[in-house]
């Protein structure tokens, strides 16, 4: 494969992504959390809407949800931002968004190898492996563009409005793309074997959830082991060590990309 052919494959992938309506919908939906971080500022003792139009104290907000007094005195700003990021990156981007991306990219290969389309493409002086890889990279590009847009937007929103600099948000771009890369490879394998978009979507989502279950079981097991160790530890043990023992296993399953966040 020469550079002209590589250039053509990349362009082809970009055209395919930009024409995809799921991509366009997700890009518009990604604007919602980005705008949220630009419109809502998390300050030391209060949350500010639209650059001062409305202000809420953390204590007041907790009371409104019948949680008055809980956690007060701790780093409320940090906790609020952490909760927000967990919702956006872990739940929306890392789970729902990823599933939508799997569904939106699952047809890339079946459409390429369906009767009529395959002959036009496969007679070109490109190996089939190259063509399949180009579709794989196309899928990764699909997610990378969306997650980069969302991640960089949120990072800038938090940095400029809330003065919160968290590079973990940027690492999460790679984390989510990496997770998708694994699931997408399964999706492609199923697509090549079955030539079916539906089978590809179903089996790759099953793989995604299957892995999620295994991961959660593993986290749960670690937590049980940690609490057992804690119970069996002598009472005179260093309180710092006891705290460490409690903390072990609790950071699993958090935001993708953070040193402590796993997809």
């Amino acid at each position: 494969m020469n550079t002209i052919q590589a250039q053509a494959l990349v362009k082809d992938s970009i055209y395919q992504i930009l024409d995809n309506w799921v991509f366009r919908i997700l890009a518009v939906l990604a604007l919602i959390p980005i705008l949220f971080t630009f419109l809502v500022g998390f300050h030391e003792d209060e949350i500010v809407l639209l650059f001062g139009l409305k202000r809420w104290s953390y204590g007041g907000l907790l009371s409104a949800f019948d949680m008055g007094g809980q956690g007060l005195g701790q780093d409320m700003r940090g906790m609020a931002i952490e909760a927000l990021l967990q919702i956006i990156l872990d739940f929306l981007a890392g789970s729902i968004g990823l599933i939508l991306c799997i569904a939106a990219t699952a047809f890339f290969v079946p459409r390429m190898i369906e009767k009529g389309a395959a002959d036009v493409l496969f007679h070109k002086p490109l190996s089939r492996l190259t063509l399949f890889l180009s579709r794989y990279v196309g899928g990764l590009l699909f997610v990378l563009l969306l997650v980069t847009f969302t991640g960089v937007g949120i990072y800038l929103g938090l940095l400029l409005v809330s003065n919160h600099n968290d590079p973990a948000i940027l690492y999460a771009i790679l984390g989510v793309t990496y997770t998708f890369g694994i699931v997408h490879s399964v999706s492609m394998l199923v697509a090549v074997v079955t030539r079916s978009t539906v089978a590809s979507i179903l089996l790759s989502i099953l793989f995604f959830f299957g892995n999620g279950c295994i991961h959660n079981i593993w986290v749960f097991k670690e937590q049980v082991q940690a609490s057992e160790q804690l119970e069996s530890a002598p009472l005179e043990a260093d309180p710092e060590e006891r705290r460490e023992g409690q903390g072990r296993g609790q950071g699993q399953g958090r935001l993708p990309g953070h040193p402590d966040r796993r997809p």
Partner: protein
Amino acid sequence: MESVISIRGLSKTYGQGPFKKGFRALNDVSLDVGEGSVFGLLGPNGAGKTTLIKILMGLVPRWRGEARILGRSAGDAEARKRIGFLPEAHRLPGYLTGRQVLRLYGMYSGRSPRWLDERIPGWLDRVGMTEGADRKVKEYSKGMQQRIGLAQALVHEPELIFLDEPTDGVDPVGRAAVREIIAGLRDSGVTVFINSHLLMEVERMCDHVVIMSKGRIIRQGSVDELTPRTGRVAFEVKSPTDELSSLLTGLGADYQANPKGFEVTLSEEEQNEVIDRLRAKGVTIRGIQPRKLTLEESFIDLVQGESQ
């Protein structure tokens, strides 16, 4: 003339396994296609035409025999750079515009974007797609898809072109344009390999024809060789009457009158005699047409003979 395609003893069996006999799509096919010719491949459904083309394009694996194309083994990547292919019932990516299809597929064949940008408007014009070039392929009619597909096969200016049903779904004006393009390609020394069920189109476009049936070549030759004279001659005369038959007493056989004149089986000498007799009786002869078998008639005879 140098052979652009050279095939010796080519055989292909689908679905063959340790306990399965499989279906033999090609059976010991040998063929040579000369440079700069327009070559027609004919045959009924299941004759093995598409399999033959796909083997040459490197799209079908595991075959026996020898197949060389542009001096290289069939399917070789370097050879494929110099080949254009319009598959039957092809599907181009719906997310691309016609112009993008030509640009990207030309680049896949190794042509630079600048080289293509200079030539794409010309090809769009030749296939009559200048107007719809910037619309998405998914919005195209069947005929428009066929035209862009044809341009896609030609845009990188290959030395050898395979066209599988090139006029499928194309209107009569478009067919004339396709014929004109193929004639232009022949004039510029490009070899064109056409597979079509429209025998009249093949008869008009091709120099050489191969007829296949049940995976074998049953006849090949020039169009003239495959459409021999039948010996019958059609006479068109001014105001034909019933008395014309009596003028031909003792000449020819199987006299058949028609509204424009008559048709009869004659030798060349007898033909002159008939003309003399008609003139002597003051009959105005408007035209004399020796009847030839059409390619379609020849094809049907051969294929039916083969099945019997």
